[in-house]
């Protein structure tokens, strides 16, 4: 990894959970990790690309520009906060035969996990966690999965364990969160069905929180809990946290600043338990 990362912001995270997006910068600052926050960066177009709306050529050209912006800022690598950006940039890099390196933010934090431990104000002791890895991280460039196996990634698990948490297994661990790019646009009922299956299986092991590293998974697992309650009376109430929010929180960043108000499922309870 290079000395200075080109920070690649996520459109979904920025739109729905802006503070979670900001938290990556907060964590990097605390870790003294250099990054460039470039207002000229454009979306990777991954959402449109994977939904089949944007043609490949558009995505290629947009990201050719992004790569050149990163290089212009003196960065040899791009660090994305989103797994769809991660996979889209990697794919475009491959097609363009561009030498730039692409990492997901969690991978950078994984590299710095020992330094993170030194800066902790709180830890996850006594907290039961389930993890969910985004499909665009594990299933597209599966050989690059940083920890574990593409069929059973443990990147989030190892982070959660190192922070002191207990990671629980659940039967639908490898199931999609339910977002499914095309389905979200065409058949939301199907998305709901999958999210329900996923969440119900998580509920069975009764964790304190769901830890994710993908904006789409965060959005789906968090917001569908409200829809499932409204439509079917399903009581789930499992807090969902993005990795950036969790680490910022453990560093002592105030609840408001990690954006708990943007979450559908209340985080206050679990935050209180963490701070105990």
């Amino acid at each position: 990894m290079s000395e200075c990362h080109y920070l690649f912001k996520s459109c979904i995270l920025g739109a729905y959970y802006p503070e979670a997006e900001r938290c990556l910068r907060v964590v990097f600052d605390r870790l003294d990790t250099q990054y460039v926050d470039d207002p000229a960066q454009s979306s990777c177009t991954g959402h449109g690309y994977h939904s089949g709306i944007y043609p490949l050529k558009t995505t290629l050209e947009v990201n050719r520009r992004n790569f050149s912006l990163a290089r212009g800022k003196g960065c040899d690598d791009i660090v994305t906060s989103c797994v769809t950006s991660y996979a889209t940039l990697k794919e475009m890099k491959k097609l363009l035969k561009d030498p730039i390196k692409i990492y997901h933010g969690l991978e950078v934090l994984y590299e710095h996990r020992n330094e993170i431990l030194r800066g902790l104000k709180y830890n996850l002791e006594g907290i039961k966690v389930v993890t969910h890895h985004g499909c665009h991280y594990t299933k597209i460039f599966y050989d690059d999965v940083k920890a574990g196996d593409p069929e059973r990634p443990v990147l989030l698990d190892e982070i959660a364990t190192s922070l002191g948490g207990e990671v629980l297994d659940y039967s639908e661990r490898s199931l999609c969160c339910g977002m499914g790019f095309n389905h979200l646009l065409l058949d939301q009922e199907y998305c709901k069905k999958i999210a329900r299956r996923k969440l119900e299986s998580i509920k069975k092991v009764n964790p304190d929180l769901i830890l994710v590293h993908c904006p789409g998974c965060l959005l789906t697992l968090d917001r569908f809990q409200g829809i499932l309650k409204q439509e079917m009376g399903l009581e789930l109430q499992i807090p969902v946290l993005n990795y950036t929010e969790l680490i910022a929180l453990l560093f002592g960043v105030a609840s408001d600043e990690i954006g708990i108000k943007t979450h559908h499922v209340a985080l206050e309870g679990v935050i209180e338990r963490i701070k105990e």
Partner: protein
Amino acid sequence: MKIGVFLCECGGNIADVINLEQIRNILESKGFFVRINEHLCSDQGCKHIEKCIREEKLERVVLAACSPMMHGKRFEDTVAVLLNPSFFEIANIREQCAWVHSSDEATPKAIALIGAKLERLKSAVALDKIIIKPYNEAMVLGGGVSGITAALSLANHGIKTDLIEQTGTIGGHMVQIGKVFSPGEIAVECALCSLAPLMSDVHHHPLIELYDRSRLKRVAGSRGRFEVEIERLPRYVTEDCLGCGRCMYACPVHVPDECNLGMKLRRAIYIPFPQAIPPVFEVDIEACVGCGKCLEACDIGAIDLKMKKKAIMLNVGAIVVATGFRRFDLGQVKEYGYGRFVDVVSQMELARILAVNGPTKGKLLRPSDHKPPGRIVMIQCVGSRDEKVGNSYCSKICCMVALKHAAFIREHYPACEIVISYTDMRTTGFFEDYYRHAQNLGVVFIRGRAAEVVEDDGILLVRMEDTLSGEQLEIESDMVVLSEGLEASDGTIEVAGILGLSQREGGFIKEEHPKLRPVETDKKGIYVCGCAKGPKDITESVLEANTASARAFEYITGEVTLETGGLSDDEFLAEIDGHLQWKKRGERVVLAFLDREIGYRCADAIGAKRLSYPANIRIVMVPSIGVVKEHHLRYALERGVDKIILGMHDNFDLEVPEDIEDRVLKYRVYTPYFRGLCEVFERVV
């Protein structure tokens, strides 16, 4: 040094295209003895050569004629009457000159080809044929059923045989399997009942020396004269041991028992199983706490904890490799949860559970709560036919293993349902009877590879798609059995490395020819059998072991001729120089290094079909493309060769350094595809 050159007209095949008179004049002016003959290969032609060598006292001879593949042997025999064959070379001016070039190109090229051979002969050293008698002793590596069979067969033919086994007992995987299937038989047999008598034969055979706890360290020599170093680890118990077992009962240490795959415990002083050969206890020195209780318990003082490892030198004429397989590491397939869920087991673990000498004394009980399972799902092809884990091959035995266990359970535990999730059921030949037998017993077969095994409320769920109906299934099961694939054992990979044997996918040892020389390796005098060569069942392993021992017997009792006709570095470099000697200013010379058996024949075929390619392609025959090294390439390029073509095949590869990469072309030669080689010749120039 008097050198003679014989130019063959080959009827008109050569003389119509190449101006032999001109060549004669040039060579004579340089002091060579030159003769032109209409048919050198005729009786008269050969007699003429012989006469000239004798009368003119020629010391070196170049024949410019057809390909050495045509009459090379005949010419060599002719010359060998008077000269050492090392002092004789053939310049191929027919297939690789007259037949592929026009008149004006062919004559200068023929001169260059002859010139290269003349240059080479100046560096030639006389080599004599050596006939040796192999050592009258054989070595078998690996004491599984293949190794046992090969050793017994060799010894029964009167050959002293060393059997090398790395563990404390012979028997191999067959001992663990418990029950074995046979083609055309529905009943399963007891593995140990078939194997134990053979193991006992090994123990008592006067011509078999068993080296247990031993490994191959290094090998010197070759071809019938192998000098082998074996490292033998100590057992810490002498052969005086009577096998009474008092030491074992006295030992306070309990460790997992390998023979039962860790499902049972054993002591630090132990015998792997009661029928083990040699029937001597051994000490697991890493587990031993050195308390000395066993020493007190042994009445005859057979325990010696100070025993040292030994290096043993053995001279053998032939080696049979029977180093077998290892079971695929199921933990690699994360989605099936092996290692996470205790009731997900391997077929071998199920075999131990069903074995009367196993952890449950043969009762079908699942590991987690020791209750009989109500439904077992077997998942086939785990670690076989799976490119994701790097094993694309079929492990051949797993279908029958699953059927054997499924049928056995249905017969003895009819309350237990069996579901087999399969890719394809491969029950070839008479094994088909067994497939039908299992179907009649009510085993449920579902086609499709299981997607994952998960645990929900303490119940194992196997998720899969029935690919015949398209239905998605979630099968509740009490126990899941994974049919693990077979991989080359660590011993097989290690031995292949030490002996320098070619390997195929997965590290299995490759035979010299799959049909005609199926147990020969690419090293003379070394044979391979059983699962060291690839996955197979016991029947096939025994067949191969007998074949390998027969071939080893032939080899040891025969004579080995060490052939001449190799290529020394000096000769090789001299031939390269020779090609450049006649190079005109501005002329480009491309050397094609082609091996004798494939590349060179392929080039001859271009001539036989009268295709053509540029005359600045010069073919240099090498005994094997493996002899061409980087310094040869540099030598040629530095002295003015424009480009080099390497005719690759087999497992040989040469890493071409970046700085000369653009001047060296590696091309895979293939005898029938001579047009491809011809196109390369054209393209390069």
